[in-house]
Each structure stands twice: as C-alpha cells, then as structure tokens.
C-alpha cells in the first residue's frame, strides 16, 4: 500500500510556507494580500476564504484535468473558481455581514487571485487529487501567514488593538506619550511591511537573493 503522507507530500506543504512562499518568492496573489491587512480579523476571514476556495478548486480541476480541452482551460478554471467564490461571498454576506462589508470587492477578487490560477495551471492540471489538494493547502497557508503577519503589525502599531480589542499595556504607553502610527493604516505601509518581511526572509537564506 502506498503511503498517504510521504516525505514528498510533506515537502508540498512545507515549501510554500518558506522558500517557495507565494507572496514573497513567487510574486503571486499580492493584490488582495495588501488591501485587506489593516485589521487582523479581516486577514483571518480572507485567509479562510482563500484556503477553502483554493483547496476545492485544486481538487475539482485535478479531477477534471483529463477532460478539459487545452484551448479553453483558462475559462474552465475561471468558471470553477468563480462559482466557488460566489458561494463564499454569499456565505459571508449571510453569516458575517460586517466582515463582508469591509472586504467589499476583495472577496470577488479572489477569482483573479493569481495564486489560485497559478497553482491550478502549474500543479493541479498535471497532478493527482491528493497531491493537488496538499499543494493548494500549502500555498494557501503560505499566503495566509504572510497576511496574518502583516495584519498583526499594521493593526498593532496602526490602531493599538488586536482583533479589535484594546491591549491592556498600551494605556500606560499612551500616558508616557506614545501615539498610534496612523500611517500604518494607510495603503502604502502594507507594501513596506511586506518588503521588510522579504528582507528578513532573504537575509536568512542567501539562495533566495536576486541579481538586482
């Protein structure tokens, strides 16, 4: 009997979390990653949505891969992803109306999130169900941890809260003259925070350094 969780399978999950991270190395799925990271809660909702859409889409495409004509594969992939995203959109509107309001168009934009298309095209079209599922899971988590890390920094320094709750120690800091850095909430700082994460990651692993 073949093992269901070999070394190779572990690699499929572990690589996208580190050295093959979709956001910092593969440059995929950045659009949505940056716009919704002002609050930790939004980042978590977005991550869950992406994990769901990505694993389902990869599994479906991987099952269908031998039946999809090559010429129209992009449209087929887009339609599968779009149906899943429409589902997520409706569920969020029903159960988490506040988060849905704040994420506005960005839930819809999961469709064109390049991670999903990229992994479908590069992996699910040529691999079996279980491998595709693991690859999607790994990439979705790789995307998710960057999102959560950026949101953590931005919410902590931008509004002095985490998940919308005040942090007890901060009241002393405010008395000492500490102020929230409002720039952190504005869009440009998301880019700078991701830039700094890339800096940390690459200075640890010299193989990742680019020519220029």
């Amino acid at each position, binding site marked *: 009997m073949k093992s269901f969780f070999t070394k190779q399978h572990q690699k499929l999950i572990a690589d996208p979390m580190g050295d093959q991270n979709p956001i910092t190395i593969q440059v995929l799925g*950045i659009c949505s990653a940056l716009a919704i990271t002002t609050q930790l809660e939004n980042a978590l909702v977005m991550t869950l949505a992406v994990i769901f859409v990505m694993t389902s889409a990869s599994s479906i495409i991987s099952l269908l891969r031998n039946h999809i004509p090559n010429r129209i594969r992009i449209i087929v992939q887009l339609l599968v992803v779009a149906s899943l995203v429409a589902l997520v959109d409706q569920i969020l509107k029903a159960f988490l109306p506040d988060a849905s309001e704040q994420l506005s168009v960005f839930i819809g934009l999961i469709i064109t999130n390049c991670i999903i298309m990229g992994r479908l095209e590069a992996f699910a079209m040529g691999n079996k169900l279980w491998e595709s599922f693991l690859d999607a899971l790994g990439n979705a988590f790789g995307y998710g941890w960057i999102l959560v890390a950026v949101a953590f920094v931005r919410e902590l320094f931008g509004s002095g809260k985490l998940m919308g709750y005040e942090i007890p120690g901060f009241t002393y800091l405010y008395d000492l003259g500490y102020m929230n850095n409002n720039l952190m909430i504005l869009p440009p700082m998301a880019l700078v925070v*991701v830039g700094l994460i890339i800096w940390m990651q690459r200075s640890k692993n010299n193989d990742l350094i680019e020519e220029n």
Partner: protein
Amino acid sequence: MDLVNIFIKGVFIDNMIFAYFLGMCSYLAVSKTVTTANGLGLAVIFVLGITVPVNYILENKVLKAGALQWLGDNFIDVDLNVLSLIMFIAVVSAMVQLVEMIIEKFSPALYSSLGIFLPLIAVNCAILGGALFMQERQYSTIIEATSFALGSGVGWYLAIVAIAAIREKIRYSNVPAPLRGLGITYIITGLMGIAFMCFMGIKI
C-alpha cells in the same frame, strides 16, 4: 465637466495600484523594463475601456434587481445579483479572447508587440476590480462608467511605467543584497503610494 472629474479621480485619487493594490501581480512581474511595461499598460487601458462598458450594460439590463423589466412586467422582481461575479469574469475572459483575435487579424504589429500580455490580462485583478467598482459605485450613465474605466486604466499605466523606469535606474545603486529585486520594489511602491496620497485631499 463631470466626466473629466471622474477621469481625474480614477487616475490620481483612486489609483488602482497605489490606493487599491489591484493588478499588483503583473505590476511587479512585468516591470523590469520600460518597453514591456509600456505594452502591458496600453493593453490594460484598452481592455478596461472595453470590458467595463460591456459589464455596465450587463449589470443594468440583466443582473440588477428589477433590471429585467424590459422583458415584461413578470420579471420586475427578478434579482440576479448572485451571478454577477461569474458573469463579469466570463465577460472579461471572453472579451480578452475576442480582442486578442481582432488585434491579431487587423494589426499584426500591435499584436506581436503586446504578445503574451493580452491573455495574461484576463487574470489581472485590475480588470475585474474595475467591473466590481463600477457595480459598487453605481455610475448613472454608460459614458460615466467608461470615463471611470479609462481613468483607472491610465492610472495603472502611469504607475507601471514609473516603477519600470525606477527599476531600470536602480540597477546602478547599491541596494542591500537581500532586498534586491522584489523587496526594494515593494518598498519603492510604498513610497510612491505615499507620494500619491497627497492627491487624496483634493475635492473634485
């Protein structure tokens, strides 16, 4: 006058890249030289200018609550908004395919210069984002929606050509090794975004 305002707003204040991060993937991947950035930017303006009006018609004649009234009074309660995501993306990918074929037929020179960028545009978030913002902001006429689309397209074009020019020059600077390439591009984009924020206070 209103049309000019919407256009200017799309280019500077609601810039697709610096205010909403739409189309970042191709923005980062295709901005190594000014020539390719130029080609992709023009293609984005073009495709946005076509898909947003088409989606506008679709939204107002088919998808919106009560939009099917022109079929007869029986349809006045029909609300097909659930389908909007699927319809929009289908329109975008179909239009991109169509535009690609038309350009190939009538202007082979333009086709070869745009090359691989055209099919890539189907998955550019800026295009679908344009359609979704059009839906959210409820423009009153199709001309206003088109003006918004062209404005956002030009804003995107401006951003990608600017970053490509900066990336060409930055090769001569001594950037810390781990930051080279992607890292410094992120940070420069952030700084450009801060510069673009000065437009936010303008009321038009």
